[in-house]
C-alpha cells in the first residue's frame, strides 16, 4: 500500500500568494502614507465641486456629481448596463431551460403580494427624492427590481411582460438623450440645465432643474434592466 505523497505547495501556491500579499501591502502602505501626509488645506476636486454645487440648486452633492458634472459618463454607464442586460438576454434565451423554481408555500405567496406594492412605493420614493436625500435612480431602480425578484421567486406564473420592459427602457433611453440635446440647443452644452434652478428653491421637491428628471429616468431604466436580468436568470421553460 503506497501512500500518495501530496505536496502542500501544489494545493496552495504559497510563494505566489505571499509575493502578492507583500506587494499589495507595500502599495497600500505607500498610498496610505501619501494620503496622510497630504496638506489639509489642499483644494481637491471635490471641494471645488461642492462650491459649484450650490449653483445648481440641488441639495445632494453626490447627485449633482453623478447626474450633472458627470452626466455624460452616467449616460455611458447606462449604456454599459443595457449591453450587459442584452448579453444576458441573448445568452439565456433558449427553449431548453431547466426548472430552478420550486413550489412556494401559501405564506410566502400572500406575504409577497402584500409587500410588493410597498417595496415599489419605497423604490419610487428613493428615486424621486434622490436630489434631496441619500438615494437616487440607481438605488431606487435596484429596489424595484428586488420587488420583482420577490414575486418571481414566490409565484411560478408571474412574469413581467417583455413589451412593458422594452417600452420603459426605450422611453428612458430616448428621453435621457433628448434632454441632453435640448440642453445643447438652448444652452450650447450637452445636458445643460435649461430648467429654472434657483438656489432659493434648494431643498424643495421641485428644484434643481433637469437633475431630478434625469435621475428619475435613470431609475426607470435601471429598474427595468435589472428586472429583465433577474427574470432572465430565474425564468423557467413555459411548457414544463
Amino acid at each position, binding site marked *: 500500500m503506497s501512500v500518495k505523497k501530496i505536496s502542500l505547495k501544489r494545493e496552495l501556491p504559497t510563494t505566489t500568494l505571499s509575493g502578492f500579499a507583500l506587494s499589495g501591502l507595500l502599495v497600500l502602505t505607500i498610498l496610505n502614507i501619501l494620503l496622510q501626509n497630504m496638506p489639509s488645506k489642499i483644494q481637491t476636486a471635490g471641494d471645488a465641486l461642492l462650491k459649484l454645487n450650490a449653483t445648481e440648486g440641488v441639495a*445632494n452633492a453626490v447627485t449633482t456629481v453623478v447626474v450633472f458634472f458627470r452626466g455624460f459618463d452616467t449616460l455611458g454607464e447606462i449604456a*454599459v448596463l443595457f449591453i450587459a442586460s442584452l448579453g444576458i438576454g441573448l445568452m439565456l434565451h433558449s427553449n431548453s431551460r431547466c426548472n430552478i423554481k420550486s413550489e412556494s408555500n401559501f405564506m410566502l405567496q400572500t406575504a409577497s403580494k402584500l409587500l410588493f406594492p410597498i417595496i415599489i412605493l419605497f423604490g419610487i420614493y428613493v428615486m424621486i427624492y434622490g436630489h434631496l436625500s441619500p438615494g437616487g435612480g440607481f438605488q431606487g431602480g435596484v429596489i424595484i427590481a428586488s420587488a420583482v425578484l420577490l414575486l418571481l421567486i414566490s409565484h411560478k406564473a408571474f412574469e413581467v411582460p417583455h413589451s412593458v420592459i422594452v417600452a420603459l427602457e426605450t422611453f428612458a433611453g430616448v428621453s435621457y438623450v433628448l434632454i441632453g440635446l435640448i440642453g445643447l440647443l438652448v444652452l450650447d452644452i450637452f445636458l445643460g440645465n435649461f430648467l429654472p434652478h434657483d438656489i432659493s428653491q434648494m431643498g424643495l421637491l421641485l428644484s434643481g432643474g433637469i437633475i431630478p428628471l434625469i435621475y428619475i429616468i435613470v431609475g426607470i431604466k435601471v429598474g427595468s434592466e435589472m428586472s429583465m436580468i433577474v427574470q432572465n436568470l430565474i425564468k423557467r421553460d413555459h411548457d414544463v
Partner: protein
Amino acid sequence: MFEFFNQPEVIKVIVTFGSMLLFFVGLFGLLTRKHIIKIFISIAIMESAVFLIFIGLTFKLDFIAPILDSVNVEASTMNDPIPHAMILTAIVIGMAVLALGVSFAIEYFKLTGKTDIDEMNEMRH
C-alpha cells in the same frame, strides 16, 4: 474604550489593512478555487475591497454627508462627494459584469455540464 478607534490614523490603518485583507481573501479564492461560480464570487469580493478602500480613505470623522441645506452650506466640513459618485458607478458596472459572467457560466454548464475550469478545454487542440 472606543475613543482609541476615533483617531483618524487608526481609522485609516483599519480601513487600509481590512480592505487589503478582504482583497487577498478574494485573490486567494480566485487563484485556488476551480469552480467557475466561486471564481466569479471571488472577483466580487475583490471589487468590494476596492469600494471599501475608496470610501474609507476619504472618510473624515467630524465631517458630514455632502447634502446641503439652509444650515449646512459651508462646504469645508463636508465629505468629498467624488468617491461616492465614482463608487456608485463602479458598483453598477461590477454588478452588470458579474451577471453577464454568471450567465455565460450557466449557458456553458447547460451545453457541456462542466463547472471545473480545468476541464474547460474545448478550444485546446
